[in-house]
């Protein structure tokens, strides 16, 4: 094997692949990722990773990905982030992203990194996720539901000077994970219409305040809508003594229909993605501080809706107990935007358990490798919460399409 091309940044393994891909696209540095599941019995890129690469290809112009024969290694040369432009992968200014039915990750796995790219695009990013692999609910892999992305992640953009008025996540069809945790039949539309020249940096280093209210969505697809009420009842039972203002909306959808895959009848349909779940978001008295939790029924079934409600309420309490101003779910978004944003020092208060995760530390290392300045970490000395203040200096990557001459 020849020595790797020096212009490529080398990474190994499939961990935090999306983060590396978006950092590569934002900074314009090509990457080479090797040893992707090289010891696994199913080596190479997984279907969701391939789909994400395709999606990147359709919203950028000039990006190139070359795979090795086994798929355990690939080169990615980023292009310009264009957004959804007719004739460049979009029809009617909507990019269609069809996911195959072998995908085990939720659609939020695609949405979160895509949203980080979107403010830097030339034109609005409108992506429609469809096909037999779209799981809108939470999954067992730890992906959050679409509702959490909408209610807990998108509001974070407001702080960066990216107006959330033009952001939309439209769930046209809900779906939980299908049989064996694979596939669903959901349809989700992301509209990201606020492109900025340069995101402002963030100063969230004060106390995260106290939880003021809890909102949430209980969803069920293809099962009795009483499950919604049962989940809400139990979750409220746990949360109500702590916060009075708990309101959880219900969403009931019929099970999505996908083609049955029967050779004899091509038009045959079958239902998939049956299940239920709940997403909770706690809003703090400080503007922009959100804690979220997400639990969905496993695809094999056998869990009562009461258990799901209870689990989710406890998960929310755990997330709140971790403290900080941004939770694990939102750290990637916030830290990448801070690093790519204006050349100011931003401060972010994070819980010790949030900083101490593999994802956060891995992200710091990746950012450093891509040429972003390294983080400064210091303990909070105002109180004994044990939180850590992360200071991030931006490298002002900004939006290439909106550079002022």
């Amino acid at each position, binding site marked *: 094997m020849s020595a790797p091309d020096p212009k490529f940044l080398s990474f190994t393994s499939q961990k935090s692949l999306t983060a590396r891909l978006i950092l590569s696209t934002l900074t314009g540095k090509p990457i080479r990722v090797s040893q992707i599941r090289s010891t696994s019995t199913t080596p190479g890129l997984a279907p969701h990773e391939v789909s994400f690469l395709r999606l990147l290809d359709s919203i950028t112009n000039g990006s190139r990905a070359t795979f090795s024969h086994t798929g355990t290694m690939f080169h990615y040369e980023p292009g310009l982030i264009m957004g959804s432009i007719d004739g460049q992968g979009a029809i009617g200014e909507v990019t269609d992203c069809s996911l195959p039915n072998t995908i085990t990750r939720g659609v939020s796995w695609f949405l979160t990194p895509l949203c980080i790219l979107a403010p830097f695009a030339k034109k609005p990013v409108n992506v429609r996720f469809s096909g037999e692999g779209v799981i809108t609910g939470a999954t067992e892999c730890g992906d959050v539901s679409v509702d959490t992305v*909408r*209610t807990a992640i998108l509001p974070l953009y407001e702080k960066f000077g990216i107006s*959330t008025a033009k952001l939309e996540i439209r769930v046209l069809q809900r779906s939980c994970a299908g049989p064996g945790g694979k596939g669903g039949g959901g349809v989700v539309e992301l509209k990201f219409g606020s492109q900025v020249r340069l995101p402002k940096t963030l100063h969230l280093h004060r106390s995260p305040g106290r939880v003021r209210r809890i*909102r949430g969505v209980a969803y069920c697809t293809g099962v009795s809508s009483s499950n919604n009420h049962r989940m809400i*009842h139990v979750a409220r039972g746990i949360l109500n003594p702590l916060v009075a203002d708990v*309101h959880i*909306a219900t969403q009931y959808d019929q099970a999505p229909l996908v083609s049955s895959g029967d050779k004899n009848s091509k038009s045959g349909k079958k239902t998939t993605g049956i299940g239920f779940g709940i997403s909770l978001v706690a809003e703090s008295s400080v503007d922009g501080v959100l804690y979220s939790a997400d639990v969905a029924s496993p695809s094999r079934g056998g869990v009562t809706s009461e258990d799901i409600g209870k689990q989710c309420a406890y998960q929310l309490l755990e997330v709140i107990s971790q403290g900080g101003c941004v939770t694990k779910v939102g750290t990637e978004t916030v830290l990448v935007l801070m690093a790519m944003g204006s050349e100011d020092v931003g401060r972010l208060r994070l819980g010790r358990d949030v900083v101490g995760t593999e994802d956060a530390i891995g992200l710091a290392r990746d950012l450093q490798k891509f040429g972003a300045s390294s983080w400064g970490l210091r303990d909070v000395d105002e109180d004994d919460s044990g939180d850590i203040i992360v200071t991030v200096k931006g490298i002002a990557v900004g939006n290439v399409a909106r550079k002022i001459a």
Partner: protein
Amino acid sequence: MPTLLGKRKRRAVASNNTEAEDLAAAQMAQEIFQRHFEAQFKPLAIPKIPESAPIEDDEDSKEEEELEWDGISEEEEGVKVVEHTDAYARMAAMSKQQLKAFMTSKPPTNKPSTPIIRDDVGGKIDADDVSEAANLKKDLALQRLISESHLLDSSSHTLSGKNRHKALDMRIQALGSKGSILRQEKMPMSHRKGIEAKKKSDEEKRRNEAKENGVILERATGTKTGKVKKELSRKRDRGVGAPGIGQFKGGTLKLSKRDIFEVEGPKRSAGKNGRGGRGGGRGGRGRGRG
């Protein structure tokens, strides 16, 4: 008297002793009736009534009751309260407004919604203010809200951009403006002709389609019949402050004979009422002309 007393005693005794006998007699009578009935009609299907035990004294029955019923044990002194609330049905769901705000496709915003009612300078009108002036302001604001509500979109509660101009135009027209300020006055003739032609063809197409489909539309006005034009020419709008008569041209108001006649009205002809010859001839001539 003694006999009476004796009788009474005997009867009382008899009633005490022969209660069961009376019952049997009643049953006998019933049987006789039944036999008679069944001889005439079909036999009746009477459900068997269990032999009712003769009614005992009050005290005895009370004892019996206490023996049979053992629902409340002696330890439970207080009232047992069973509360059944249908928690699922009574669940404090979000109000419709809250739900709408939260379940949109957009990320939820926790900004307080801006009040729609504003006065001219954009300041809020205090809801508690009951003074006449405040009421007038509220009235005006409400009127405007009603008339301009179709211009408001869901995203914002205040008029902005194009819609603000439209609202302004509507207000000016309501105050008596002749035309819309949005109407483009000057335009190449070819453009104007094109626009007019397009308008006409669209209208014709609409009418034809409606006719083919059997839909009855409103009566055609203008263009085709020219009714509107006639009406317009009959009553010309002279504008505010302009003289209501004659033709004002080149700084002079020219009055035609006809105008003067219309002002003066028909001459009371001198000849007829014998008011002398002054102006009689003129009057006559005027009449002749009219």
